[in-house]
């Protein structure tokens, strides 16, 4: 989107600056003007312009070359085009030596400026994408990277592939470590936006004000420390996908801001007065039950429905135990390659330990466990001894349970008795045996707590 690139035209003759600015605005660029080198440097300190058109001869002690050098100190990546009515070989050489990207003589052909600007913007788009991709992707994420033979996971992969090329918002729910970001990246890389940026933001990691600035960017002076204008993650994801992890943790104010972006695809930078329009697909993820959060009044229902257009629920690892051997072998192969260790498999005893564990940290915990075992392993197989630390942390059925918060002992007792009675089919003798109390005590408690049988 052209308007995302800002241009500054610097010329001491106002009519010159304004007419070029107006011509560039007709081409869809956001253009500012400055009537002196000093004003240009001041504006450059506040905003990150992509291109500067700078007149060579300007009065006031700061000519085009000096202006260019000062701008470059602020923005080394800026493209600067020197304009002059007085073309000499010497000035052209000086300008290029000092870092001007181009040198044009006015009046120039409209086609020349048009081609020049579009060529620079094309390169800038590529540089921006390249930088984001290099930072974020050390490897490609595809559906092939999701290791699973579970029927539920296969259904999820089919749905993800079907929605990959849509623009609709996706809400991925699942416990920590189930691979929500992996699914989000696979959706992005399999759709029409694959060549564009994928920008991930962890909403739980930052305080409200920081997250707001992180998402929407800020203008210079928007808050203490905002020394210059900065693009937010939404702008960085232009044309691509933004992945909002732990969306359930955002504040009510940010919920309102996000709702507006989802509805209108527009927002303001923090401290800004100009609307920024973006074409970004939103994939959100959370480990909390958002529907419950809505019922509890902690999450806006209108935002929930905007996010929940396509819902993907990733089951925890303990509910797809058939994937444990497959995933463990996958991690083993990868880590043995990375560590340069010749470990070929997992023994039967080792697998039993893994299958018996409850994996509250899901796939990520399994990956860490395999890596830890690989580091200490001395043989060619990972055995139960190598996974001793896993066995110590608890077995299936014992892990991953915590008493609900804000509950009295009596409330807890009532729930336990009701659940035990349900399991024994209302058999008092059996229930009393399980609970470790005699039948008369159980009768008394059933009556006191008014538990239906």
């Amino acid at each position: 989107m052209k308007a995302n690139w800002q241009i500054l035209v610097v010329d001491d003759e106002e009519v010159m600056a304004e007419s070029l600015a107006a011509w560039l605005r007709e081409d869809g660029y956001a253009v500012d003007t400055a009537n002196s080198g000093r004003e240009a440097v001041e504006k450059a300190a506040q905003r990150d312009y992509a291109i500067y058109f700078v007149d060579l001869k300007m009065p006031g002690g700061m000519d085009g070359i000096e202006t260019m050098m000062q701008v470059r100190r602020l923005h080394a990546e800026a493209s600067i085009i020197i304009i002059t009515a007085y073309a000499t070989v010497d000035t052209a050489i000086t300008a290029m030596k000092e870092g001007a990207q181009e040198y044009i003589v006015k009046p120039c052909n409209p086609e020349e400026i048009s081609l020049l600007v579009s060529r620079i913007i094309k390169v800038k788009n590529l540089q921006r994408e390249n930088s984001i991709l290099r930072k974020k992707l050390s490897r490609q994420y595809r559906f092939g990277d999701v290791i699973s033979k579970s029927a539920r996971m296969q259904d999820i992969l089919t749905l993800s592939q079907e929605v990959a090329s849509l623009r609709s918002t996706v809400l991925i729910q699942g416990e920590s470590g189930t691979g929500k970001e992996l699914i989000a990246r696979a959706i992005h890389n399999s759709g029409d936006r694959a060549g564009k940026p994928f920008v991930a933001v962890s909403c739980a990691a930052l305080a409200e004000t920081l997250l707001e600035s992180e998402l929407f960017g800020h203008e210079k002076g928007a808050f203490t420390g905002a020394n210059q204008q900065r693009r937010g993650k939404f702008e960085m994801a232009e044309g691509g996908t933004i992945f909002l992890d732990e969306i359930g943790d955002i504040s009510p104010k940010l919920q309102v801001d996000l709702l507006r972006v989802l509805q209108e695809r527009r927002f303001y930078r923090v401290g800004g007065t100009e609307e920024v329009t973006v074409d970004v697909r939103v994939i959100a993820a959370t480990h909390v039950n958002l529907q419950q959060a809505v019922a509890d009044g902690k999450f806006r229902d209108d935002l929930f429905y905007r996010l929940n257009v396509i819902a993907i629920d990733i089951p925890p690892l303990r509910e797809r135990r058939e994937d444990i051997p497959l995933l463990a072998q996958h991690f083993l192969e990868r880590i043995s390659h990375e560590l340069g260790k010749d470990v070929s498999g997992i023994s039967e005893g080792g697998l039993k330990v893994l299958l018996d564990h409850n994996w509250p940290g899901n796939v990520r915990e399994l990956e860490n466990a395999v890596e830890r075992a690989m580091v200490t392993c001395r043989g060619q197989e990972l055995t139960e001894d190598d996974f001793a630390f896993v066995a110590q942390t608890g077995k299936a059925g014992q892990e991953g349970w915590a008493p609900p918060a804000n509950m009295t002992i009596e409330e807890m007792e009532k729930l336990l008795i009701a659940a035990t009675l349900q399991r024994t089919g209302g058999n008092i003798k059996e229930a009393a045996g399980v609970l470790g109390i005699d039948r008369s005590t159980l009768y008394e408690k059933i009556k006191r707590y008014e538990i239906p049988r």
Partner: protein
Amino acid sequence: MKYFYLGATPEVDREALTAIAERAGAEFGAPVREIELPGIDFAYDAARGQYGSIPVLEMLVRMCPGDAFKLLGVTERDLFIPVLTFVFGHAQLGGRAGVVSLARLRQEFYGLEANREVFLERALKEALHESGHLFGLVHCHDASCAMSLATGVRQIDSKRAAFCARCAVRMERKPRG
């Protein structure tokens, strides 16, 4: 009631003006009124042998009738802005006044044989283009759309005298009057 005003300087080809007026009414969904404009000798730049489009726009803004929501001027004079060698037209983006120059739309300007049909077609396309800017439209990526950027007559000839669907929708959304 607000009108789309079409103004012509004294030397303008009347047939071209009529063709533009007929099409403008249909295209902009507003009644069109014609207005006589004075000559633009005041904007002549002897050094360049051309006429500055900025003083012409300033004149049009001053002359804009009270019941006009847009005024598009048409002139035979060759226009320029200081930084460029020429412009086919110039309009206030989202503003009230714009101007189209017919000078470079004629085949004769390029030493070719006159072609009336080609000239009228180009005049219509450029009038639509500058009017689009008046309605706030910027250049369109679709090379066949009237709003695509043309820096030469070849590009004007390759576009249609109509807006693409996207630009047409944007035009529809702009308030009239």
